[in-house]
């Protein structure tokens, strides 16, 4: 069975968009990527092979952030409520989007924490993003 937390596989899967991947101290996979996505384009910002993919769609007044399961495992995501609609709230507009997920692999659940920071650049008609995901098995 393939190692779902293999950094080499994650780097290969995200090579076209410059995703970096490394093994975390204490075990687990850390993936990260940063670039610019134009308004109205749906682009993959993070990919964890066999687990999930995150797509970002910047729109003129909001962001679409869509998780996509990869594989047959159940996947549950919970967004931090404070940033559900941060684009409408000046005070939290610069806050990162955060999601916590659980991949329901029987007997071997995997936890994921996804963190996406965005900056709108209207002159470029685009959003800059910095995204990372920490993916690991729960402590024994």
């Amino acid at each position: 069975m393939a190692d779902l937390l293999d950094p080499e596989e994650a780097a290969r899967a995200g090579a076209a968009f410059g995703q970096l991947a490394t093994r975390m101290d204490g075990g687990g996979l850390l993936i990260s990527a940063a670039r610019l996505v134009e308004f109205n384009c749906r682009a993959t910002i993070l990919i964890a092979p066999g687990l999930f993919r995150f797509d970002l769609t910047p729109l003129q007044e909001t962001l679409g952030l869509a998780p996509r399961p990869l594989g047959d495992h159940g996947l549950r995501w919970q967004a931090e409520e404070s940033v559900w609609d941060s684009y409408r709230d000046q005070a939290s507009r610069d806050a990162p989007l955060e999601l916590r997920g659980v991949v329901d692999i029987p007997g071997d659940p995997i936890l994921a924490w996804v963190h996406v920071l965005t900056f709108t650049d209207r002159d470029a008609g685009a959003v800059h993003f910095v995204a990372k995901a920490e993916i690991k098995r729960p402590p024994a």
Partner: protein
Amino acid sequence: MQRVSFRIPADSREDVLDGVLPMLPSGIVERHVAEGVTELASFGAALPAEQALRAASPVELEALAYEDVPADWRERRRRFGGGAVMIAGRLMVRSPDDPPAPEGVPELVIGGGGFGSGSHPTTQMCLALLLGIEPEGGAVDYGCGSGTLAIAAAKLGWSPVSGLDREADAIEEAKANAARNGAQAAFAHADIATADMPMAELLLANAPPPVQARIVSELGPQVRHVIVSGFVEGEMEEVRAGYEAVGLVPVQGMAADSWIAMRLGRGDG
């Protein structure tokens, strides 16, 4: 800079994207081209080769083509669009950088980046609900953002029309958008939590529950219709109950991406 485009069965979109989207760093823009057929397009300085794209897709990529395109996003947007939305098949909302609406289709041209410019589902649902009622007086848009709802109301025949927002930049955008669309609407910078609340026959409030509660507390007898959104499913009962307590009952509802929109009217018809 090159653009690649291809057509796929609409119902295979997600499966195709599983294969090709990670290969396209600029992402894709999707366009409906015919019943059941979707066009996906991307651009970049170093696009994947045709063979690689075809190998990554679980279905045949029809009409796959590459072409040279301008590097400047505004020029590409003017040529290919991608930012316009059609509301209920009757009204197009687009940015100044998108191509004009097809002949005979009314349009709103909304610039700036303030909330309410038309790309958010709550704005789209409010517009759809607004299109469903006949003008019968004035309108006030609470939390007007870029002014889209107020400007649409003015263009549909509501008069006088005004809009309030707590963000000064949004008010400047709303004024510019009203001028751009030839709409008669007055916009003012105000914090709805504390400001005087003007009333009219139609109230528009694409705003979170605290704003809805303030509107309820100030509601005047002349109000005949209220179009609300800006809250999610779990907040709907609170908003609905607030309006029902002052005699406004739901007439029509819509939902998209967990967001709710409602049109409320006087229970006496």
